[in-house]
């Protein structure tokens, strides 16, 4: 072993020295040539520049193409694109903040990045938003990307969250009257919803009528939205949580009763959203959470034969009041790196790809936030009209509150306690409200925006 081992070590050292200068992209000497390097990070959003069917389509294709086009007009700006795993977003950014190695631009859902605005590491983007853009994007979207009237997230596309249902199962259970058109979003009230789930259960007790989950904070936007089913606003005008009011408790009691009646997946406290999503695809649940990207992904998997075909349609989250609608706004942020030249170049690049008439069409991979793009692409997006009908009802689910990530982690353990009968819905929501308001208060103190530091 000795010879083999020493040879391996020597070879390794030699390779290491050899490889030392290699690896990674070629770095530009900023000081020397006056060039500016702009680092773009994104989590996987869509493949290809416009479409996943393009040759070599990848998650960075759009930004590489945008960079290429931008560089034609701005030869002194070098744009490097890096795709990072969404699950490690906070690890990567946390180290980058502490070591002052932040990227210049991050492209992701606005709610996932809102805490960074409160930390003071994002720069407002109002100076690059022109009047045309302001009027082209609906107010409900702007509400999701602004904090205290300042825009920190430049909206690009959005991804509405709804429910999906298996219309074949509905038909088999005699529920035709609750099935909406192929490209429509059904709206049911809470009484209808229970009636639907009961009929589904009675027709086939091997299928769990409704996919409920609470194992972690994955997909918790739906669980948080269910708390609004009876008209609860979740946050009051001051931004405090009020979900333990009677209508909030009524909502959780309603969901919990569905569980007790066997109308949901059993053991939701130990199921993740991925679990129930897979159960829905395997036709083991009839009604499930979904969003525009997830929905079209399942449709594509059906076409590709990865999932057995069934008649899948969309529904709003049942409500006693208006349709409950929320959306994830895919947007760009610019980090406050302290380097004016880089920040200016980053802002300019964000504006370039967010307003370029051709590039903005890539927002069809989610849904366009711009009405002009929606009109132009209406023929390609059969569900667009239905989603647009919901636009007036879109809520700002996170309220862009400081400490939203912590709030999410405080919510699912209370749901688990309710779903295991360890707490009543009132106890669970009281506890969450108390904890949540403490989290908000603490984070408001730390927030650069809220404290006006």
């Amino acid at each position: 072993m000795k010879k083999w081992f020493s040879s391996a070590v020597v070879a390794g050292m030699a390779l290491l020295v050899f490889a030392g200068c290699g690896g990674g992209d070629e770095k530009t000497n900023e000081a020397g040539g006056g060039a500016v390097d702009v680092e773009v990070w994104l989590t996987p959003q869509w493949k290809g520049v416009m479409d996943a069917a393009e040759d070599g389509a990848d998650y960075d294709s759009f930004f590489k193409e945008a960079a290429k086009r931008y560089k034609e007009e701005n030869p002194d700006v070098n744009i490097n694109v890096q795709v990072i795993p969404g699950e490690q977003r906070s690890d990567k950014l946390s180290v980058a903040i502490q070591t002052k190695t932040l990227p210049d631009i991050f492209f992701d859902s606005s709610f996932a990045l809102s805490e960074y605005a409160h930390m003071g590491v994002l720069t407002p983007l109002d100076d690059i938003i022109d009047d045309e853009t302001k009027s082209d994007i609906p107010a409900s979207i702007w509400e999701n990307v602004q904090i205290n009237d300042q825009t920190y997230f430049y909206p690009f596309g959005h991804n509405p969250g709804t429910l999906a249902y298996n219309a074949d199962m509905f038909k088999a259970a005699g529920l035709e009257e609750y099935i909406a058109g192929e490209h429509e979003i059904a709206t049911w009230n809470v009484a209808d919803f229970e009636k639907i789930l009961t009929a589904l259960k009675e027709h086939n007790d091997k299928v769990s009528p409704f996919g409920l989950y609470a194992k972690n904070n994955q997909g918790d936007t739906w669980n948080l939205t269910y708390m609004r089913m009876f008209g609860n606003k979740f946050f009051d005008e001051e931004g405090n949580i009020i979900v333990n009011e009677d209508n909030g408790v009524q909502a959780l009691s309603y969901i919990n009763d569905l569980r007790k009646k066997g109308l949901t997946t059993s053991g939701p406290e130990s199921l993740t959203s991925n679990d129930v999503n897979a159960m829905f695809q395997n036709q083991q649940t009839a009604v499930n959470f979904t969003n525009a990207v997830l929905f079209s992904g399942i449709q594509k998997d059906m076409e590709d034969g990865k999932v057995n075909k069934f008649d899948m349609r969309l529904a709003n989250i049942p409500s006693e009041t208006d349709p409950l609608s929320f959306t994830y706004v895919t947007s760009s942020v610019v980090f406050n790196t302290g380097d004016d030249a880089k920040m200016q170049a980053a802002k300019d690049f964000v504006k370039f790809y967010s307003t370029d008439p051709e590039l903005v069409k890539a927002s069809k991979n989610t849904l366009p936030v711009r009405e002009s793009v929606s009109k132009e692409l209406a023929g390609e997006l059969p569900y667009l009209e239905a989603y647009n009908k919901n636009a007036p009802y879109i809520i700002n689910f996170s309220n862009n509150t400081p400490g939203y990530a912590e709030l999410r982690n405080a919510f699912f353990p209370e749901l688990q306690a309710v779903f295991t009968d360890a707490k009543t819905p009132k106890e669970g929501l009281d506890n969450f409200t108390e904890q949540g308001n403490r989290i908000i208060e603490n984070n408001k103190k730390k927030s650069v925006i809220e404290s006006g530091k």
Partner: protein
Amino acid sequence: MKLIKKIKSMEPYDLITNIIVFLLALLSLFPIIWLITNSFKTSADIYKMPPDILPKSLYLGNFKELFNNQPALRWGFNSFFVSFITTALSVVLSSAAAYAFAKLNFKGKKVLFALFIASLMVPKETFIVPLFKIVVAFDWVDTYQSLIIPNLAMCFGVFMLKSFFESIPDSLRESAKLDGASEWTIFWKLMLPIAKPGIGALFILNFVTFWNDYLWQLLMARSKDMNTLTVGVAGLMQEINPNIGLRVAGAAVAALPMVVIFIVFQKYFTKGIAAGAVKE
């Protein structure tokens, strides 16, 4: 036939024990079998209840997605290169340090060793930021050095190998000295070969540790070509719609080198784990 004869000649107690051990061995293989069979299923099929132990049809889409359009082979090479070189270098450094602590007498030896042991209790996450800053200062981000060099100081290896060197009689070293051997010759030609089982065991343990050093690799690799397999595969998942089939296929590919390393070093591993525990 030989097996049947052997079984027939067994005492009932031995037979039962062997059957239990055989079943447990099969059970321990199950995760590997499950990983491999699931890599040939669609995401929906992986979650199917009740599950299919074997895929109904051999679905290759996960591997196609992994290797088409993505430098997955490069990622695999990076993972192997980084893990192997880091392991090899850290084993050399650990064995040299362990030998010094076990056989040489020098001032402050006990304090220094106590410091080494104490450092085992500090999780990497606590010093990842200063370590990152050092790497940035050296301008090593996105290079192989950044993935290898910061991991070379592995105190666990020193701790583990010290007991191996201590179990080797001092008389061997003394007689070699009388024959005129230098300290280096004694270490390299005499002591290291005797400590082979320990080195083999450490090699496997370190290789697995470095192969799975996800957070550090994630922080260091900036360009696509510098990703390791685990980081590269994670970057192919949409957070909102994770493709579990692709993840399983990536894990299956990533597991292969570890299985190979274990097979190559297993005789040392089993010997090594036990041998160091006994002192002459």
